[in-house]
C-alpha cells in the first residue's frame, strides 16, 4: 500500500539529499533516517524511511538458507 523504492544517496545538504534511482535524481528528505553519501535508502513519498542494510541477493540467500523443510 506504500510504494517505496531504493535509491543511492549522492550528496546531502542538511536535512535533504540528492538520491539517484538508476538514472533519476530527486531531492529526498532525510528527517527519518541517519544516512550519508553512498548509502542506499528506501524512499516513500519524497522521504527516506529506512537505510537499506544489505542487498537483495544477500537477503534472499539468507532467507533460503534459514528455511526449514516440512510443508
Amino acid at each position, binding site marked *: *500500500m506504500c510504494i517505496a523504492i531504493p535509491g543511492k544517496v549522492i550528496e546531502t545538504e542538511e536535512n535533504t539529499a540528492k538520491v539517484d534511482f538508476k538514472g533519476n535524481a530527486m531531492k529526498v528528505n532525510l528527517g527519518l533516517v541517519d544516512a550519508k553519501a553512498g548509502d542506499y535508502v528506501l524512499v516513500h513519498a*519524497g522521504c527516506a*524511511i529506512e537505510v537499506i*542494510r544489505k542487498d537483495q541477493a544477500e537477503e*534472499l540467500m539468507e532467507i533460503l538458507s534459514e528455511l526449514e523443510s516440512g510443508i
Partner: protein
Amino acid sequence: MRTLEEIRQALAGYNGRPLKIMEVCGTHTSAIIKGGIREMLSPKIRLVSGPGCPVCVTSPYYMDEACSYALKPDHVLVTFSDMMKVPGLKGNLYDARASGGRIEMVYSPLTILDRAAKNPDTTYVMAAVGFETTAPVYAILLDEAEKRGIGNIRLLTAIKTILPAMESILESEEIDGFICPGHVSAIIGARAYEPLAARFDKPFVIAGFDAENLLAAIYEIVRWAKAEAGEVKNLYTSIVSPDGNGKAKLLLDKYFMPCDCYWRGLGAIPASGLKLRPEYERFDVKWTDKEAAEAASQNTMGCRCGDVIKGRINPDQCPLFGGVCTPQNPFGACMVSQEGACGVWFSNMIRKKGGGYEN
C-alpha cells in the same frame, strides 16, 4: 537450506488442510499479480487481499469532505492521485475539479511547503490518508512547516494503523496466516506483530516485494500454519528491524495520537487511526466521521466490499462485480484502486463475448 525450485514445488504440491492466507498490503497484491504467484500455488492455498489499501478503506464521507475543501474559496485540496476516483456520496474529486474545485496532485506532500510559502493567502489542505508508512511523512511536513513559519497548511486526516484492523479481522474471520506489509513494518518493527501472533496462534511473516521473497514468505506461513503455531518471522531484514524506525515513531508520537476510525468494509474499529494532538490543532481540519452512526442504516445496494476485504468472498462473487461496478465506473472502493482486490481481480479476468467473466 531450501532452493527456490524446492519451495515452488512444495507450494504447488501442498495437499494439507485448506489454508487462507491474507496479504495486507496493496503493493503486495500488485507484486503477487505481476509475479503470477497465485498460479504457482496448490489450490489448497488461497491468497486473499486484506484491508491494506488506503483507497479501499476510505469512507465516502471523507471524500465528500475533501471535495468540499477543493470547492472552498481560497483553498486548494492537495492529494495523492490514487484518491481522485474514490467515490463519495456526492461524487469524486474529478467531479469537484470539473465544478471549479482547486485540486493539486502530488507525489510527495513535502511539495506543498514551497507552494504554501509562495501563496500565503491560500490554505493548502492535504488529504492525509495512508498507513504507518505515510504518516511520518505528514509529521515531517508539519515539522518543516513549523521550522519555516508556514501557517497555511492543514491536514484532513484519515490515517489508519494496520494492527487493529488485522486484529479485527482475526476476531471474525478464519485466516491462517498473514503476509505482513513490508514498508509499514519498516516503521513499526517486527516485534509489533508479536502480541497478535501469541494471542491468535497464527504466523505473521514480513515479506519483501519480489516474487522469490513472497514465495519464501508463503512457504514459511504454510509451515507454521500446519503446526497451528503463532510466530513472527521477518524475511525483510534489509529494511525491517525488530523495533522499527525510532525517529519515525518519535515524530508520530509528537504530532499524532490514536483515535477511533471507520474502515469502509470493516466498520468502526477503536484506536485504529491517528489524529493530530490538540496542541497541533492549528494544522487540523476537523471533520466528523459520521459512519459509525450511519453505516448500519446505509443501503449499500448490494456492494460487498466489506466481505471482499475480510477475505470472505472473492470479488467475482459480489453481485455488482463487472456489471454495475467496473474500474471505469467503480461503485465500491475495492474497485477504485488498481491494488484493491476487485481492481486486481478485474485486471486478471477475461471478458467473455456476451458478458460474464472467466478466470
